[in-house]
Structures are given as C-alpha cells and as structure tokens.
C-alpha cells in the first residue's frame, strides 16, 4: 500500500488534499457568481450611492451645530471624521455582511437539500464559508476600482492622513475577523432553522439591531452612555464600528491589542456555537425529520 492510499484510508486528508478541495470549491463558487455578472456589477455600484446622502445629511447636522471659532464635534467625531467613518464602515461591511446566508441555510433545511451534506463526505459549514470567500473575492475584484475612486475623491475627509502601519495591520485584522464574525453569527441564525424551519422574522430582528448597534447607521459613541456601555460589550460592533474606529485612531493604542484579542475570542465563540448547533441540529433532523 502506498503512502497515499494509507492517508486516504485513514480518513484524514493531507493538507495538500484539503487545499485542493478548498480551491475547487472557491473556484466553482466564483464561476457561479459570475454567471449573473450584469446584475452583480450593477448591485456593486449601487452600494456607493448612500455615501452621498450621508455627506449631505451630516454636513447639515454639523453646520446647524456650528459655533464661530470652534469645530463642532458629535460623539467625538468632527464632520470630516464622520464622512471618513462612513467610508470605512462601507469597507468593513463589504467584509462582514452576508446577504442570504441565514435564509439560505434555513431553506436548505426546509427543502431537505441539507441531506446532501449528510450523505456526501463534505462539511456544510466549511463548504458555505469557502463559498462566501469566493463571493467576497468576486465582489472585491469588481468593487476595487470604484472603491479606490470614491476614496480618492473623498481623500480630503481623512484629515489625519494614513494611519501608521501597525494601526493599519490591526485594521486589516479587524476586517478579516469581522468577516468571520459576520459569517458565523449569520450561520448560527440560519442553523436555528433546524428547530423553527422559518427564520426570516428572527433575521429581520437581527438586521434591525445590527443596523443600529453595529455602527452601520451611526458611530455607536453617539448612543446614550449606558446603552453604549452595553453595545460595546456586544459582538455586533465588529461588523462596522470597530474597524472604522481602529483606522481612525479612536481606540487608544494601549487598548488595541486587548480589543483585538476580545474580537478573536468572539470569533471562537461563534465558531464553537455553530459547530454545536449544527451537530445538535443534524441529530434532531435525523431523529424527527428527513
């Protein structure tokens, strides 16, 4: 028996095998994404429209607060900070938003498509994660140019210039972990489908909270103190607020490491939660449904 056969028989693929499987899934998902390229490109460009309304809205808010001789601030943000904040959260959400993930999982459970993952030697969560990586890659490849263009036009709003490299590294880390938190949080909601079949109202509530408490709508520092205190403890802020705060230097440098560590722990918490729910869900599915 050759070494290769031994490995195959042990049921544990080598790392190279794993990479090949991952690459195949990513490649196929990419191709699938590009089938509807027209719709996809248009959807990508439309995402830039809200930034214009934000600029108008906040310029009105700040000019109404203006006192001669001082720069008005709002929750620690000056006007140009605020616009820069929205630009960065737009980038952060390009990593952390997961359209259709929860409802997709719930639908697979309802239609019984989930059977495929019980019958074939492939893991549902890993498969979906790789699919998302592919979707994101496709998105960035289309959106990179428009993003660069918009940031170039708005470069004046970044008053403090480009952050030092270690801040930038922390920012990239927060984006990547934001992707994972977004994925596993929405996957967990989708997995509730094993118990309730329909998760759309649950998802709606999540979206609502996420909209206001992740920093997507406004920086969470604008919230009343006691609410902000709670929201700072929740994982939602990693979807939008946190990466922007890191980039704009709103996190004190001595706390940056700790904050990133906390985010990492949240990633682990949601991975474990998803694994646990999936295992329980499959057990329930195979016990009652099918």
């Amino acid at each position, binding site marked *: 028996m050759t070494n290769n056969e031994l490995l*195959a*028989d042990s*049921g544990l*693929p080598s790392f190279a*095998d794993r990479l*090949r*499987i991952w690459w*195949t*899934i990513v490649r*196929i998902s990419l*191709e*699938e994404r590009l*089938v*509807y390229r027209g719709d996809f490109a248009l959807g990508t460009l439309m995402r830039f429209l809200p930034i214009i309304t934000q600029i108008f809205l906040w310029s009105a808010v700040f000019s109404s607060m203006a006192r001669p001789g001082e720069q008005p601030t709002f929750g620690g943000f000056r006007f140009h900070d605020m616009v820069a904040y929205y630009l960065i959260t737009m980038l952060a959400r390009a990593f952390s938003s997961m359209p259709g993930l929860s409802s997709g999982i719930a639908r697979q459970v309802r239609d*019984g*498509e989930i*059977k*495929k993952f*019980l*019958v*074939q*030697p*492939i893991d549902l969560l890993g498969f979906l994660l790789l699919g998302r990586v592919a979707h994101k890659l496709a998105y960035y490849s289309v959106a990179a140019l428009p993003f660069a263009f918009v940031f170039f036009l708005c470069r004046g709003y970044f008053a403090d210039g480009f952050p030092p490299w270690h801040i930038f590294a922390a920012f990239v880390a927060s984006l990547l972990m934001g992707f994972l938190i977004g994925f596993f949080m929405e996957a967990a909601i989708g997995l509730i489908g094993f118990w309730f079949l329909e998760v759309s109202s649950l998802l709606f509530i999540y979206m609502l909270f996420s909209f206001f408490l992740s920093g997507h709508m406004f920086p969470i520092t604008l919230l009343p103190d006691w609410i902000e205190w709670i929201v700072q403890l929740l994982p939602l802020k990693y979807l939008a607020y946190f990466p922007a705060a890191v980039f704009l230097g709103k996190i004190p440098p001595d706390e940056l490491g700790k904050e990133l560590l906390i985010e990492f722990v949240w990633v682990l918490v949601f991975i474990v939660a998803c694994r646990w729910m999936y295992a329980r869900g499959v*057990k329930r*599915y*195979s*016990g*009652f*449904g*099918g």
Partner: protein
Amino acid sequence: MSIIEIENLSKSYRVYKKREGLMASVSGLFRREYREVEAVRNINLCVEEGEFVAFLGPNGAGKTTTLKLLSGVINPTSGTARVMGYTPWLRENGYRRRFALVMGQKNQLWWDLPAQESYRLHQQIYRIEQGTFERTLDELTELLDVRRLLGQPVRELSLGERMKMELIAALLHGPDVLFLDEPTIGLDVVAQHNIQQFLRQYQEQKKTTVLLTSHYMKDIVALCQRVVVIADGQIQYDGSLTGIIDAFSGSKVITLQFAEGHEPGDLAQFGEVLSINLPKAKIKIPRADVPRRLADALAAHPIEDVVVEDPPLEEAIADMFHKVRESQQTSIA
C-alpha cells in the same frame, strides 16, 4: 456475510396534529398534540453483494424511509443496520465514500453551472484520482450518450438529461452500494427506457449492489430479480417478481374463442366476466376452480381456442395492497 443486514429496524415520526380552522391554529401555538407515525416497523432484510433489489409499495409505505435509514440521513427509533460493516447513521466518511444516493426529485448538481464543474467538485470530495476520474467520466458519458451536454448549464437541461447527469455524479466514485429513490419519476417513456437500460448495463458490468424504489412496474420488471414489497411499514413479500402472482393472486384469466356465429348465453356461471368481444370472451376464475369450470365451458359451448393467463402484475400487486389495508383495518377494529 451479507453486504446489507437489517435487523428489527423501526422508525417512527412524531407529527404535529393540527385541527382544521383558524382557532385551532391559534390554540396550536400554545398546546400541540402530536401523533406517532410508524413509517417503518420491525424490518428484517439481508441483501447479498451484487443483488439488484426493488422496493415496491404504495405511497407512504416506508420505502423512502428505509433508503434514508440506510444512507444515514435519519436515525432509527430502534433496531440495527449494517452496510458493508458500517452503521449508516454514524455517517463515517469511510462509509460515505462507498455508497451513493440518488433521489429522483432532488437535485444535487450546481444549478447555474455545467455538470462537469459539479463533477470536478465530486472528484475532490471523494478523492478520485485524476486518471480514474477521467476514465470513469468517459465511460459514463459514453454509456448515457451525454458528452455534448457536459458543458451546458444544468438549468438548461431537460428533466431526462438532468437525471442522467445526476446518475453520473452519483457513480463517479464507483460506489459499492447504490440507493435509487424513484430515478425515473416524471420522465417520458423514452427517457425512462434509457435510464433502465443504462442501469442494467452498469449493474451487470460493475456488480454494484443496488436498491431501487419505483412506482413504474416496467423499471422493476426490467431490472430486478428480487422484489421486496413494503406496505404499512412492514415487509409483506420478499422474493421473485413472478412469485408475487403465485403468492397474492388467487385467480387466472381465461380467454375463450367461440366458433363462428355462436352466441354464448350466460357466461357468469363460469366466473367473473371481464369482457365479451365476440367471438372472444375474458373470464376471471379462482385458481382452484380452473380445471372444473373450463371443462364445463368446453362441454357447454363450441370453443375453438383457449388461453389461460396470470392476471397482470399490477393487478396482483394492487390486490395485495388492498389485502394489507383490509387486514390492518380489521386488526384495529
């Protein structure tokens, strides 16, 4: 040792019993009543390597549930099953690489992509060597005559073509055991026939063990030496196809051809008259009475030709399902 061994296997579901009407729906939010449905009851079955076995039974008889149990999609309520030494519902990868499940109503291929992309993925997840993969794919596309469809998005294929592509996906890794749940459902006669022929050729060549459920008697007649009839969650019959008639049909169909111009009078005295189409008449006679009544008929009428046949298979099976249901009802009463 048999390749599939099932012992005292049972599966019951708990289903929500909903009463009619809005008020009942509202009260159902607070207090739910459940009903136990026994989909499979105490099944015992052994299948030898290389057998082609058909599961036959009315809708809801427990055929699909049995296939789901054997492919590990669901756990049983009690009992054991071993397939190639594995317990299916543990879902070990070792087992999952050695069998395949095809459901006629479910789609496993990527809808928007050509089938060959899905096959590439299967190559990776089943760890099929490049050489073997190419050879198998070549063979299968040849047998099914679908080479030109490999590059076409699956959503553009007809139902019959799609089924062929599904079969290829399921067979790429050369499964030792194949479960087919109504593989010809919804297909036209030609497509049905193609799939049947393919399955027969493939099975003869590879000696794969196949379990098939189907509503089409033609599928079963064409493919299976052994038939397992399931009704009401239990095995009612296990044996050859023709044996069903002996076991369950208590009558024969006799066709009498009368002499030219003869007007037979009352034929009902010989048996149940199925049709009179002079000069021919068809009569159904209980099997034990055939010799005596036939002699009576020959004595009473000038008859030129006699054909004695078994009733059609479908009828025998329908009779059997009917009997099962009746005995079920009397046992409840």
